[in-house]
């Protein structure tokens, strides 16, 4: 018992100290080469990321951070490296709120249906091609999540798309706990017919109903576990890493990200969150258009995946106006690439939402400041404001013009593309 307790303690301690160290380290490393240099991007149309646009703007970066953003009158410090950006457009580095990028190997842990304590940080590959591709497309921050084949898949993290190691890329650890509703976690599972089920192919659940049952079961176990811990005089139960994570969600310390594509799954996701009292974000909610009232009433944000796609998984019906309808109803939302391998570069996905009627400035916010806010990293990334990380994208033209492309990308003040 004591052994288990000590384990938890040291585990938590390590986590905390690592967390505390990470920003310091990141600050040191990312800025080391750029510490003394001040970079000034001058002459571009600057889209701040919060809706405002500055013609012939100036963006000043130093020490890995944005120092100042303004119009042509903004003073350029002496000795600064000046980049002429006339005729081009500057945006913040884009933020993709839902991806499975960067995970080396399989994104789905098949060991169990409930793998709440699994963390993507243990598998993050800084040299991943998907991350490099996203970076070239102007995406500098992504939330990485475990795959969608488990009922409770594990812990996601918000990371930069550029960096030498997971520690240096990290923006926010344990940014969300992935739950998946619908048929995806049960798809491929089979009921055992006699004999001993000896492989993962004989896993449960095998239906939507079973998926919800597994979720409830897990949270009830977590509640019982908590009660056991608090019985006066009784020995504490053996530490259960998965249940500890679920307890954090129940205490409101961890956001749950529920993947729910079809209408009934979206309703289920909201119902479960109300039932157990945890905070949730709806992820890849293709059929959000048909559940708008419930979403508004529940006041849950939506991560809308790949608006360009004419099809979606799990039998969900696509409606092109979804992003616009969410905006109209005041639902907080971000456009993301999600699990669809056919998703385009994030900027192009937002462009499709614009094609389908979304206001361009809202579309830009949904892949920059609003995405950052929904990931609770708006104090680091998502807009061009003094004090935030110098993650900047220079475009040849308007980001939602299909003839324009990414010219350069800076991450932490360092030019990493081209």
């Amino acid at each position, binding site marked *: 018992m004591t052994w288990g307790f000590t384990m938890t303690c040291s585990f938590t301690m390590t986590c905390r100290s690592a967390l505390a160290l990470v920003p310091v380290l990141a600050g040191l490393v990312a800025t080391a080469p750029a510490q003394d240099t001040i970079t000034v991007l001058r002459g571009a149309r600057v889209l701040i990321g919060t809706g405002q646009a500055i013609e012939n703007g100036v963006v000043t970066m130093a020490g890995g951070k944005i120092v100042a953003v303004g119009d042509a009158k903004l003073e350029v410090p002496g000795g600064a490296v000046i980049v002429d950006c006339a005729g081009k457009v500057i945006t913040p580095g884009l933020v993709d709120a839902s991806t499975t990028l960067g995970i080396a190997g399989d994104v789905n842990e098949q060991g169990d249906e409930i793998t709440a304590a699994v963390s993507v940080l243990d598998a993050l590959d800084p040299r991943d091609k998907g991350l490099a*591709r996203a970076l070239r497309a102007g995406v500098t921050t992504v939330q990485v999540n475990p795959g969608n084949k488990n009922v409770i898949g594990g812990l996601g993290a918000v990371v930069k798309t550029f960096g030498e190691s997971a520690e240096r890329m990290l923006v926010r650890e344990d940014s969300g706990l992935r739950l998946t509703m619908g048929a995806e976690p049960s798809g491929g599972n089979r009921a055992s017919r006699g004999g001993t089920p000896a492989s993962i192919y004989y896993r449960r659940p095998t239906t939507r109903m079973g998926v919800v049952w597994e979720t409830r079961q897990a949270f009830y176990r977590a509640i019982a576990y908590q009660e056991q811990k608090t019985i006066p005089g009784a020995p504490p139960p053996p530490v259960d890493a998965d249940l500890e994570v679920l307890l954090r969600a129940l205490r409101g310390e961890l956001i749950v990200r529920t993947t729910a594509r079809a209408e009934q799954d979206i309703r289920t996701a909201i119902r479960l969150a109300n039932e157990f009292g945890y905070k949730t974000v709806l992820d890849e909610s293709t059929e959000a258009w048909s559940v708008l009232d419930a979403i508004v009433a529940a006041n849950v944000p939506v991560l809308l995946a790949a608006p360009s796609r004419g099809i979606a998984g799990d039998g969900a019906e696509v409606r092109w106006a979804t992003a616009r309808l969410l905006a109209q109803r005041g639902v907080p939302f971000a456009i993301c690439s999600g699990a669809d391998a056919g998703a385009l570069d994030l900027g192009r996905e937002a462009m499709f939402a614009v094609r389908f009627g979304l206001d361009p400035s809202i579309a830009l916010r949904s892949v920059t400041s609003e995405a950052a806010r929904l990931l609770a990293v708006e104090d680091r990334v998502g807009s061009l404001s003094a004090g935030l990380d110098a993650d900047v994208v220079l475009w040849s033209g308007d980001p939602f013009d299909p003839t324009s492309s990414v010219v350069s990308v800076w991450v932490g003040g360092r030019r990493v593309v081209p």
Partner: protein
Amino acid sequence: MKPFLVFVAAALAALLPTSPAQDLVAIRAGKVWTISSGLLENAVILVKDGRIEAVGADLEVPWNATVVDARDKVVMPAWILAHSTAGLGGGNNERMQNVPFLTVADGLDPSSLAIEEGRRNGVGVANVMPGNQTLVAGRGLIARYVGRTVEEMTLRERSGLKLSFAAGQGNVIAQIREMRRVLDDAAALKKDLERKREEWQKAKDAGAIKDEEFKEEPDETKKPLVDLIEGKLVGWLYVPGSAELAEVARLKEKYALKLVLILGPRCYKAAEQVKALGYPVVLDENALEFRETDPETGDEKIVSPAKVFADAGIEFAISLGDDGRGPERHPWWQLATMVRSGIDRETALRSLTSVPAKILGLDAELGTIQAGRAANLQVLTGDPFQATSWVDTVMIDGEIVYERSKDQRLKLLFGENEGNK
């Protein structure tokens, strides 16, 4: 009486989803991409009996013309697809590898979603051909994107015989061997027929036969290949990469085939070879831009084959995605992709208009907005290179075949009504 008739016609046009060809239509356009003579501003296009009668900035609109008001819009020729599998559904690739006797006329579905989506995208005419996964895949036909039957849709039958080097799943040598065998067989058959004809002629000269003419024909199942060898039928050959291009040169030398090349993304490295061959070129849907992985370092880079071909001075038509999923299904996406890679806008537009018309032998009829051409036109809400532009109206042979305001399925796809909940 006459104005009344015009009024009735206009009223009918407004009521029917596809209206009959108007006697006289005047389109007032904000901008006209003529393709033949640049961009006109504030021009009028006069359409009479399904043909363009006149185009110009200072044309007078006749009093009896039905007027289409596109003063805030852009008018272009309806797109022409030199090579497409639209309307054949999932079954466009026959698994038997030598089926020259097949024809897409037996598989084309006029009411398919792909044809409907094509109209929504401004397509007027397409050369519908079998897919790329069959060695000798059968004959195509040139279809108008209007009509309820294949017969109504058909603009020209037997547009060519589809051939492909992509059927061998990467086994280049096996593909080449099979293609040689098929063509050698056809050549042998042709020779055999010639010998029989000579013998017949000799016998006739000797008075042993009284038949008026030589009647023997190759077996119907083999005739298309013999026609190909004899140059009576054009071969449309899909070439996935530069490895197979060398064989195309050999085919040209040995059989003097008439070919159109449909090039896959990996052909860009042999642009000079393509130019030397001199065959008309159609770029496959994914051959405008693709991500190439360096086999040594694993690094990815974006390659723009279309730009490489354009720089080499090769004229080409392009294709649209037919599976209805990827962004390549949108003409504006394909056009913008070319412009992004540095191709000029006129060249990009020609690849969906005048160049495919020329490859299909329809350049006297289609592909430009000029007096005398068929009135295959589209009205766009804006610039054809922008994501925010939509096709408003499509006209084929003077007949309005698509109007966005009446596109019920578009409304459903949009989910317009859901916002009112």
